[in-house]
């Protein structure tokens, strides 16, 4: 115990939180020099703020709001970050046979993410009337971007948590708990996170997505309504997106997990 205490005294943990992306974003950093640690956290939050401003559907000037307002066949310029998220979303949409879909209803029942044409670098065009919501995948991407910023700022180790989408880097692990779906006031240790990411979705959250374009194609017998799905992946953007693929496919061994170097854990809300 004593050794642990001394160890912590040498490398203190600085932890701050700000409201972004509709949730509480927490950044933890370990470094000997507190001024460097604070500056690193500032750069992490700046990266998150940029993604919030580009991808929040509620902000009128964001890329996502402009895409949603645009007319069919009207080209929309987006920033580098939005472009990268759309590229990742498009790849996941294709490789999950349409299960992952960031298109939301906008008047055309058959509209899907396929109708958002990534025409050329940093430019998209809608081929049908539709709106998109990058919600979870943008959150995962923001966690990765903030973690990259911490790494560049030269701290020893760091962890970013955006409403339960978590990634950590460095030589010291960060403990991550998950709520017990049977007893939400109780948490269980899920992982000692180091140079890896984790995201958790409840089946209830994922079912909300089923109001989307592919509701009729999805079988939902596999998991009970209160179950939670945790996905561990090298990057948080994949961890978050894959929780939806697992929830909607009803299998924790969907082949896309292995392709992304990820694995899934399902916490059932009923006792076996």
């Amino acid at each position, binding site marked *: 115990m004593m050794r642990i205490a001394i160890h912590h005294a040498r490398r203190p943990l*600085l932890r701050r939180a*700000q409201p972004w992306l509709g949730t*509480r974003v927490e950044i933890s950093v370990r470094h000997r020099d507190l001024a460097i640690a604070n500056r690193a956290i500032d750069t992490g939050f700046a990266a998150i703020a940029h993604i919030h401003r580009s991808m929040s559907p509620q902000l009128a000037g964001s890329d996502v709001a402009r895409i949603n307002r645009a007319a069919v066949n009207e080209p929309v310029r987006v920033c580098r970050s939005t472009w990268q998220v759309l590229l990742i979303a498009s790849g996941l949409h294709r490789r999950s046979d349409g299960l992952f879909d960031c298109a939301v209803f906008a008047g055309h029942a058959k509209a899907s993410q396929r109708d958002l044409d990534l025409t050329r670098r940093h430019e998209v065009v809608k081929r049908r009337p539709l709106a998109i919501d990058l919600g979870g995948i943008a959150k995962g991407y923001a966690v990765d971007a903030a973690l990259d910023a911490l790494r560049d700022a030269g701290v020893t180790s760091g962890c970013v948590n955006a409403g339960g989408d978590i990634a950590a880097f460095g030589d010291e692990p*960060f*403990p991550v*708990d998950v*709520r017990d779906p049977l007893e939400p*006031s109780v948490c269980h240790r899920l992982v000692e*996170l180091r140079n890896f990411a984790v995201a958790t979705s409840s089946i209830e959250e994922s079912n909300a997505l089923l109001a989307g374009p592919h509701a009729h194609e999805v079988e939902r017998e596999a998991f009970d309504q209160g179950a939670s799905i945790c996905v561990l992946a090298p990057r948080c953007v994949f961890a978050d997106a894959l929780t939806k693929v697992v929830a909607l496919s009803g299998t924790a061994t969907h082949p896309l*997990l292995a392709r992304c170097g990820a694995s899934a854990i399902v916490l059932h809300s009923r006792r076996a």
Partner: protein
Amino acid sequence: MINRFLIASFPVAGIAIAAASNAFAVEYLTVEAAQRLMFPSASSYVLERPGFTPEQMRAIDASTHASSQARQFLIFRAEADQALLGRIYVDEVIGKSELITYAVAIAADGAVKQVEILAYRESHGYEVRDPRWRAQFTGKRASSPVVVGDDIANISGATLSSRHVTDGVRRILALDALIRRGSK
């Protein structure tokens, strides 16, 4: 590290290793640490009591569709050589099952400079609205600006809305505009 997770799916009992208590609390920053962080060039942070009338407060709450649940709503003037750099507002909001203390820094021109969450306490059930539950955190502020809490784990899947903080910031912006009009 992730060898434990090669098994793709198993019931929760399989990983029931550590159980936490019913209340979950994190103290991020003291008010003093937030002041230094938000206006580092200030030489003093002076407590300000603007003395709003109840009518003014009601008008603000109505126009911003927000209200404060703060036990102590604090306003500080950040000054350097008697010149005003901006103000720091310390407020509290209650969400569905959490109590959040946060600080908003607003520059002298009325622009939001920074929003920091100072403390966060979560409970399941009615406790968050119970003054006795809230009282246990009163005065629980470390003298150090650093919160050393390696025992506090991140919780995956704890998606909590920051809507109440966003509403609170909107209300504080309206209050700040009122203060700036009054001091002209």
